[in-house]
C-alpha cells in the first residue's frame, strides 16, 4: 500500500492528477493501492473521510485568525516569555 501523505504530495505536484475527475483519480489510487480512507475521500469528495486514517485533525486556521482585529498592538512592557515546555507538548503530538 502506498503511503497516503506521499500520494497526496504526488497528486498535488502532478498537473494530470491535481484536477483529475474523482473517477480518473480513483483508478490511479487503485493502481497505487491507496488506503481505504484516501480512496473513500476521493470518491465522495469529502476530505474529512481521511480522519479514518489520521484521526480528527482539525487545526485552527492561523492565516484566518492570526491578525488582531484592531490596530493597537500588545503592550511592550509586558515581557515576552516562552511558555514552560511541559505545559504544552512539543514537538507536535498530531
Amino acid at each position, binding site marked *: 500500500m502506498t503511503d497516503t501523505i506521499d500520494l497526496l504530495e504526488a497528486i*498535488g505536484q502532478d498537473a494530470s492528477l491535481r484536477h483529475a475527475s474523482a473517477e480518473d483519480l480513483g483508478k490511479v489510487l487503485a493502481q497505487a493501492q491507496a488506503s481505504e480512507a484516501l480512496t473513500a475521500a476521493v470518491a465522495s469528495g469529502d476530505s474529512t473521510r481521511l480522519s479514518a486514517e489520521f484521526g480528527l*485533525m482539525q487545526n485552527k486556521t492561523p492565516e484566518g485568525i492570526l491578525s488582531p482585529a484592531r490596530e493597537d498592538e500588545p503592550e511592550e512592557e509586558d515581557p*515576552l516569555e516562552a511558555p514552560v515546555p511541559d505545559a504544552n507538548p512539543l*514537538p507536535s*503530538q498530531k
Partner: protein
Amino acid sequence: MDTSALTHSNNTCRGSLACVGMGMTLGSHLTPLARSHIERADVVFAALSDGIVEKWLQRLHPDVRSLQPYYQEGKSRLKTYREWVALIMAEVRAGKRVCGVFYGHPGIFAWSPHKAIEMARAEGYEAHMEPGISAEDCLYADLGIDPGRFGCQHFEASQLLFYERRIDPAGYLVLWQVGLVGDWSLARFQTGPAYRQVLVDRLSQDYPLDHEVIVYRGATLPIEKPRVRRVALCDLPNIPLTVEETVVLPPAEPLRLNLAMRERLDALDALEKAGKEVQA
C-alpha cells in the same frame, strides 16, 4: 552542473530566523526556496491550516514543533501569538537556525511572523520572510477575478464594524474572517448570526440587500475542490459559515468617469502633442 560549491556553510552557531509560507494546497504550492529553508533549519515551528499538511511538513524535517496547542477557546489570540514569538525567539537566541512555517503567505493575516522578524533584527540576528501562495492568490484564480480590473478592497471583517472605513462599491470588496466578525475579545473562534447581521447592516449602506455575494474557501488538500457559494447579502447571517471562508462582494455600480481629472490629462496630452514642455 555541480552546485555543491554553492551550498552555504552550515558551520555557524549564530541564530537566525526565516519565516516561510507553505502555500495553500499540500504538494502544490511550496516553493523550492521555502523548502530549502525548512530543510536547512535546526528547528521548525509550524502554524498550519490542516493537520495532514502538518504531517507532510514532518516528512521534511525531524524537529517540527506545532504551534497549534497554544490556541485555546477563551484565551486571547494575542496571548497565543506572543507565546509563539517567545518560543521562536528563544531558539534564535540559543543560536539555532529557526524556520517558522505558516499557512499560505507568512506575512498576510499573520502577526507573529512580522513581530518575530522585527524582534530578531532588533537584536542583531539575521531574519527575513519568504512569500507563499496565499488564500487571496487562490481566490483570484478560482473565482476568475482580476483585482486590477475594477480595483479590489480587502478588510478584516471586524474592522468594518470597529472603525469608520470607506467602501468603494464600484470595485470588489473582499472580507476576511467573517465567521468571527465582531469579536473584540480575540478569545472566540466563531461568532453567530446576530454578529453577521450587524455586518450586513453596515454593508447595506453601500450595497442593495439582494446583492449577490460569494462565499469562498480554497483547497488545502489536493483532492479537494474550492468551495464556492453564492447567496444574497441579506441571507449572509443565516447560512453556515466557518472562519476559513471568505466573503467577496462583486461591484455593485459602474465606474464613473472623473471628468475634472480627464480634462487635466487631456490638457497635458495637448501640450505634449504641441511639443511644449509639461511642468508639474
